[in-house]
Each structure stands twice: as C-alpha cells, then as structure tokens.
C-alpha cells in the first residue's frame, strides 16, 4: 500500500472507524491500484448499505428492537447480586429506571477509580475509602447515657481513630456541629475533653428523660467521617489496580476527596452525572447503562437504537424521560399526545387554548385518515413538463 492510497482513504469521507479498519487491514500488503479501486468501490457499497434510508421510521424500529428483547427480561430474575457483595438493580426494573430518567436509582452505586499513587497499594486504597464511607460516631467509641448526671458520654477510642486516619480533635469538633446542621437538633450543650478523649453532651432541659434519649440517638447516629450519602465502600482489586465500589452515590463530594481519579470515577445515577459533568456525559451514561443492563442479561441490541433513545432524551439540554412527562408529553401535535395517554385532558386543554394541529406527524395522520409522512409517503413527485 503506498501513500497515495492512504491519502485516498483519509479523504474518502468514510467514518473514522471504517478508515482505520481499512488501513490496518491493508497495512503492509501488496495491492495494485486496480485491486485498490475494487476494494474502495466495494467498501462504499457496503457502507451505503449500513446507512439508514431517507424517511425510514427509525424511532419505531428502535422501540421494537429494545422492546422485544425486553419481554424476555421479565421472565428472568429481577434482582441480581452484583459485583463485590453490593446489590445492584439489574434487568427490566433497571431498564425502566433508565428510560424514566429517575432522579435517584433504587440502588445508587459508584465505581471509584484511584490515582496511580493509591491504586496499587491496598492500605492506601483503604485510607481513601475511610474518607468516603459514612461512619457514625458510635463506631469511634462507646456512647453511654448517664441517668444520674443527665448527660451522654462518648469515650472515643484512639486506636480506631488512628486506624481510620482522623484525629480525636476533628471528631470532637465535627460531632456537635453536625448534629446541629444535619440533624437540626440544637437543644444541647457539649464539653469536649481532648486529653481523656471524652465528649459530654447535656440536654438543655435537664429534667426531661425524653430529651436525653433523643439526644442519645442523635449522638450515636451522627456521621463524623466520610460522605453522608455513601453507606458502604468495598475495596476490590481488578485488572491490577484497586477500585472502590460504593453503596450510595455522591459524585460531587467524592471528586473532592484526595486520591480519587476524577477522570474515570463514575456513578450509576444518570441525573447526577448530567448535573456534575454535563448533558453530553449524561448521554454517554444512558448509553453505557442501558447497554450494560441489556448485555448482562445476554441480550444483544444494536447500539444505534440505544444511541437514538439517548439522543432523544438529551435533546433539550437536560435528561428527559420517555413518557408523558418527557418526550411523548411535549410533542407539538394535540392528537398525537391525546393518542398516547390521558386523552381527555389533552383534548380539553387544547380546546381551551385554541390549539391547532398541523398534521405533520404519524399518529395525527393515521387518526384523520391521511397517508403518513414516512417512507414513500414523505416523497412528493413533481412532474417536469416535457417542453
């Protein structure tokens, strides 16, 4: 293969992937210009065949191509134990979740990749995980209720603090502050003794046992280390590096943690991705999630169908669901919307608002009995006068 052929491939207007495939195939082979012509001609024919015809109803084909294998999914298991003891919703419920663009999935999880200095050493990976996993005050020491002095005593265990890389002072500072800000409970005063590693909490009303027990619950459950939404972190070694899997998701806060690789870390919460990383990342997330859900069930669906769905969902700059609150509910045509769901409401609202229907879509034209504008129905013949 000579340079002029490479040139010709590069300027051929074929997709990048086809060009690369073609070049790797022909690399180092002896090809005459006649053969090359023949190959290029056939490549163009094949490429033309893979393209969608004009006026093809791609949406309907995508719906059927995803819907038909979807019927087989219901018969299989609903939930499936996922990676690393973390339970993840898979199968049809997950697919519905993706298409409905739920704000939070039923089992949010994150896959946290670590920077190079952290991902080869289990201990260093574990250290990062301490910064992420939400840990309650009760894990750092004993929380006891003293009914005689009407106070709550917290004996902080210094060994645990050392293991989890947090200072006793930090806990002492954080615990009361967090009870006030996160639990919205302010009826107490506290005294911290750093030398003995003890915190005393006194309820403001020293007479009430109820207040004391309430305070006890708040003190026990206050999260002093980690990110509130992330309940569990599992460290796993995969293809030579340590990766953290989490139960619960908070992309924004995890990105702030030292040692986290902010270029690869991801979550299964699509709404969160589109918020933190933008709509284009959201589109990629929809494709990846839908594809992996289907693949996991052993179903092969062409990516192009899923890409079409993802493109539709992300068209307007935010992730919209497929359904009456999203894409289907925002169609121009009244008749089309009425044909989908809540018929009467749409017709009534349209009548009140004096809406018009220009009859451009498929559904409207079927309703009124006209040829639909798809395939041959969208082509108009114009006769050219002979002279």
């Amino acid at each position: 293969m000579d340079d002029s052929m490479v040139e010709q491939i590069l300027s051929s207007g074929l997709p990048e992937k086809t060009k690369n495939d073609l070049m790797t195939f022909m690399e180092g082979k002896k090809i005459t210009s006649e053969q090359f012509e023949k190959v290029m001609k056939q490549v163009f024919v094949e490429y033309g065949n893979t393209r969608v015809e004009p006026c093809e109803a791609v949406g309907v084909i995508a719906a059927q191509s995803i819907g038909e294998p979807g019927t087989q999914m219901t018969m299989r298991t609903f939930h499936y134990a996922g990676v690393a003891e973390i339970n993840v919703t898979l199968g049809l419920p997950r697919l519905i979740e993706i298409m409905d663009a739920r704000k939070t999935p039923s089992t949010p999880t994150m896959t946290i990749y670590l920077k190079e200095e952290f991902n080869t050493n289990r201990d260093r990976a574990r250290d990062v995980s301490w910064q992420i996993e939400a840990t309650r005050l009760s894990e750092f020491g004993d929380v006891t209720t003293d009914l005689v002095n009407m106070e709550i005593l917290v004996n902080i265990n210094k060994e645990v603090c050392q293991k989890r890389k947090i200072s006793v002072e930090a806990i002492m500072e954080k615990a009361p502050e967090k009870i006030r800000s996160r639990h919205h409970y302010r009826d107490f005063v506290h005294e911290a003794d750093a030398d003995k590693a003890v915190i005393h909490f006194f309820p403001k009303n020293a007479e009430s046992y109820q207040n004391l027990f309430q305070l006890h619950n708040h003190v026990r459950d206050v999260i002093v280390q980690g990110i509130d939404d992330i309940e569990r972190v599992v460290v796993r070694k995969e293809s030579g590096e340590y990766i953290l899997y989490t139960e619960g998701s908070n992309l924004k806060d995890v990105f702030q943690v030292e040692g986290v690789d902010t270029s690869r870390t991801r979550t299964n919460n699509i709404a969160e991705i589109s918020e933190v990383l933008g709509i284009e990342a959201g589109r990629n997330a929809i494709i990846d999630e839908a594809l992996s859900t289907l693949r996991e069930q052993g179903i092969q669906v062409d990516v192009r169908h899923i890409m079409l769905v993802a493109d539709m969902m992300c068209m307007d700059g935010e992730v919209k669901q497929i359904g009456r609150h999203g894409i289907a509910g925002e169609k121009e045509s009244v008749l089309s919307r009425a044909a989908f769901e809540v018929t009467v409401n749409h017709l009534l609202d349209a009548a009140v608002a004096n809406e018009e229907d220009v009859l451009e879509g498929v559904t409207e034209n079927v309703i009124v009995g006209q040829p639909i504008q798809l395939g041959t129905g969208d082509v108009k013949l114009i006769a050219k006068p002979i002279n």
Partner: protein
Amino acid sequence: MSTKEFSVLNHVMVPEHHIMTQEEVDDLLSTYKITHDQLPKIYHDDPAVKAIGGAIHDIVRIVRNSQTAGRAESYRMVVKRPKK
C-alpha cells in the same frame, strides 16, 4: 480533602466541546439547510459549557467517541436554562 480544581473536560465520559466561529456556524447551517433553533440544545450552566466559557446563542461542536463511527461530530446551541 483537596481543594484542587478538577476540570469536567478531563473526564472520560465528557467528549470534546468547542465553541464554533461564525463562519463555521454559517457553513454548518447551510450544509444541513437548517436554522439555529433546529439544533439540539445545551444549557448555559452546563458544566462543560462553563468549562469552555460558552455564552448563550453560541453553537458548540461536540466531538464524540462514537461506538459505531469511531469519531462523530455533533452540535448543540447554548440556551438559557428555563425557570421551573
């Protein structure tokens, strides 16, 4: 906790975003015979738009890593996020 700035554009899930010049926009619209508002939208406060410093009514070229084509270009118009 590190306060080091991270850029969303470095993330593997975020494709390249570029602001297009007026000439490029005119070229694009005439090749596809479309108007501005027929393009897909992207909000002005989208993290990727903020990162490249796009303003409302700019047109952003997005170069995606497509699973089918290898590399695919797409375009979005920057619009203001509607109030809820």
